[in-house]
């Protein structure tokens, strides 16, 4: 032990980590996790107080039991150096944790003029009785009562459960003049019974630029949610329920995914629109001129098996009429992307568009792609094509084929698999390196032990050394051998498992690669063969390692995964 300490002391100058400036160490501690960060205080005087001045606090990575976590956080906050600023606070809690705790952290964050705040309420998977559904408690987030001059970025993420839900009263009473980004996930918005027509959400956040609402619901009894803001430039609405009116004179980018009942009342500066609707919901209603629209991506998907399609005769006509109306509102768009299913819908009632002039006067490019490749391909009818392209002669028209979409998806999945395999191989390599060094270390003491034993036996013979020492060595060696066998067994199982996993992944990638058209495959082939070679080397090494351990001479296997590399080329 002593010698090791000596060695360590000699190399104190070599501690690069401790010589880094505090702000860089804080960054590393942030990635280390808050509990580890505090634990580093025992390392040396240099590290003792570093955690107390961390500017970014993440209380979300811990899976501690509530009481212990509460205690930890309380002690952490009281142990912190109050002179230093906090920039961001991230907190995740279970809803049963009690709001006292949340309020404690919020109070801390706001009193420290935090700039970024991220609060997540974790999902509880508890059984909920039938009756409890009726006893739902609504809880107003404590945030509504806070004011902050400094907060710039706020994310609130909640979950629904039968017994509990969080809501925000609209308009909230908070006053946050610096807030630029607000993300609300799964929050119930209590719009109340706002009588004034456009009395709006977030009016007291004058600098808000980016707003995201995902999975939000408008509380029962409320009429509409009004999003009226003079400075808002990016708005994302996804998977929500309830009518929304949007009045935003500065809006540049609007993204809507599966949120029926949105009414775009005013957005004169809109430059880009992404709209996706998977169902026959209430289609986006646009009642304003979008004169500056550059890019529009519209995807309206009809699920062939859905109930609505049974009533298609009754409901389809007005629906398609609405689609045509929506397209007409996008008349100044330059780059338009549509999905093939939408175009197919238009083709099914040509009479609606045949006498209409083409709305797009300034189109530069039109792209049509299939969103659902299980639906058989359809040819584009001339009426639809004329409707889309007649008024702008110079537009380029691209029709993405099913094969292309399939190829792109296959490329993505092949790449994904390769990435996973790379991770697996890297881990395995690292482990096997550790194991080999272990093995060398294992061997070394065994040899030295036998050597010392020999010596000692000789010594004993000569000088009659006390035999207790030999006994001690003997017992030690037994346990050593035992643990060695255990380690061997473990390594054997691990090797077997990893080899199987690697080979099956390689096969899977190979199958995908054979499906790809040659142009796409060429790009991936190099990487794939590299992976094959790497896998082969590692598997060989591990095998050799095992063989050495079993006392056999290593014998490199000639079965190579090169076969896997060459075969896809042959098959095309």
């Amino acid at each position: 032990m002593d010698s090791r300490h000596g060695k360590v002391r000699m190399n104190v100058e070599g501690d690069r980590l401790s010589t880094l400036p505090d702000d860089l160490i804080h960054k590393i501690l942030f990635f280390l996790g808050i509990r580890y960060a505090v634990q580093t205080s025992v390392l040396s005087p240099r590290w003792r107080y570093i955690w107390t001045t961390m500017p970014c606090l993440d209380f979300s990575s811990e899976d501690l039991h509530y009481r212990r976590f509460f205690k930890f956080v309380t002690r952490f906050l009281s142990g912190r150096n109050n002179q230093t600023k906090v920039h961001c606070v991230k907190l995740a809690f279970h809803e049963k944790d009690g709001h006292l705790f949340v309020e404690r952290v919020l109070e801390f964050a706001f009193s420290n003029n935090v700039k970024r705040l991220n609060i997540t309420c974790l999902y509880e998977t508890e059984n909920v009785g039938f009756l409890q559904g009726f006893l739902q408690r609504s809880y107003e987030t404590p945030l509504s009562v806070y004011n902050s001059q400094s907060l710039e970025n706020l994310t609130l993420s909640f979950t629904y459960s039968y017994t509990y839900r969080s809501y925000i009263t609209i308009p909230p009473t908070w006053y946050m003049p610096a807030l630029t980004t607000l993300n609300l996930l799964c929050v119930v918005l209590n719009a109340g019974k706002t009588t004034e027509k456009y009395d709006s959400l977030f009016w007291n956040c004058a600098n808000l630029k980016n707003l995201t609402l995902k999975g939000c619901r408008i509380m029962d009894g409320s009429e509409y949610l009004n999003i009226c803001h003079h400075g808002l430039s990016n708005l994302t609405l996804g998977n929500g329920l309830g009518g929304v009116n949007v009045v935003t004179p500065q809006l540049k980018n609007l993204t809507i995914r599966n949120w029926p009942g949105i009414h775009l009342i005013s957005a004169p500066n809109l430059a880009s629109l992404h709209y996706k609707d998977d169902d026959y919901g209430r289609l986006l209603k646009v009642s304003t001129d979008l004169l500056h629209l550059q890019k529009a991506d519209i995807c309206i998907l009809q699920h062939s098996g859905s109930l609505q399609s049974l009533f298609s005769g009754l409901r389809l006509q007005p629906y398609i009429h609405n689609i045509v109306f929506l397209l007409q509102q996008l008349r100044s768009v330059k780059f338009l992307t549509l999905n093939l299913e939408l175009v197919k819908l238009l083709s099914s009632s040509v009479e609606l568009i045949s006498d209409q002039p083409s709305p797009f006067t300034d189109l530069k490019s039109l792209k049509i792609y299939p969103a659902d490749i299980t639906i058989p391909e359809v040819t584009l009818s001339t009426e639809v094509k004329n409707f889309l392209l007649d008024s702008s002669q110079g537009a380029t028209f691209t029709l993405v084929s099913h094969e292309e979409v399939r190829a792109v998806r296959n490329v993505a999945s092949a790449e994904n698999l390769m990435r996973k395999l790379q991770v697996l191989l890297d881990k395995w390599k690292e482990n096997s390196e550790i194991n080999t060094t272990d093995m060398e270390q294992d061997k070394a003491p065994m040899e030295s032990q036998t050597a010392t034993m020999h010596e000692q036996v000789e010594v004993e013979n000569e000088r009659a050394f006390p035999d207790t020492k030999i006994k001690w060595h003997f017992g030690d060696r037994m346990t050593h051998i035992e643990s060695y066998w255990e380690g061997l067994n473990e390594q054997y199982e691990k090797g077997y498992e990893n080899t199987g996993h690697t080979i099956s992944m390689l096969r899977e990638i190979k199958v995908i690669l054979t499906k790809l058209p040659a142009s796409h495959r060429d790009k991936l082939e190099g990487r794939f063969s590299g992976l094959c070679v790497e896998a082969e080397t590692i598997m060989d090494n591990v095998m050799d390692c095992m063989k050495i351990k079993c006392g056999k001479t290593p014998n490199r296997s000639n079965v190579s995964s090169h076969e896997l590399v060459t075969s896809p080329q042959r098959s095309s």
Partner: protein
Amino acid sequence: MSYSKTIVLTNYDGETFVVDEVVAVEPQTIEHMIEDGCANTSIPLPNVTSKILSKVIEHCKKHVETPNSNEKAAKADLKSFDFDFVKADQGTLFDLILAMNYLNIKELLDLIYQTVADMIKGKTPEEEEEMRRVNAWVFSCFVGVTCLYFKSKKM
């Protein structure tokens, strides 16, 4: 044309690197220097060794050359490049942290911090000791504290 304009970087050892301007402005620090007109002859980077500077330039080149598109393939390629990039020995990694921090290249820094944090977490006590080379006697003063060191020692 602005593309063909080159910038001369002089490093710690006095070596000079001639780089296209588009590559050189990738680090914010250099961009600001050029904007402020401090880059007429050459930009001195006294804190950076030639080994690290060439690595940084390699990184900037890759990020400039990769088209700024939404293409998944290009993004994935860049990501795997970055992952390979941080697979360096600890000495290089610490030099990189200092250099990247000085040059203000944010996106890669986060990845390096994560890598160092993983190193600290994933190391056995001996390895960590080796890596940090701190005075081991400190540990004996804090027996009983639930710390990284003792926790991992049990494993």
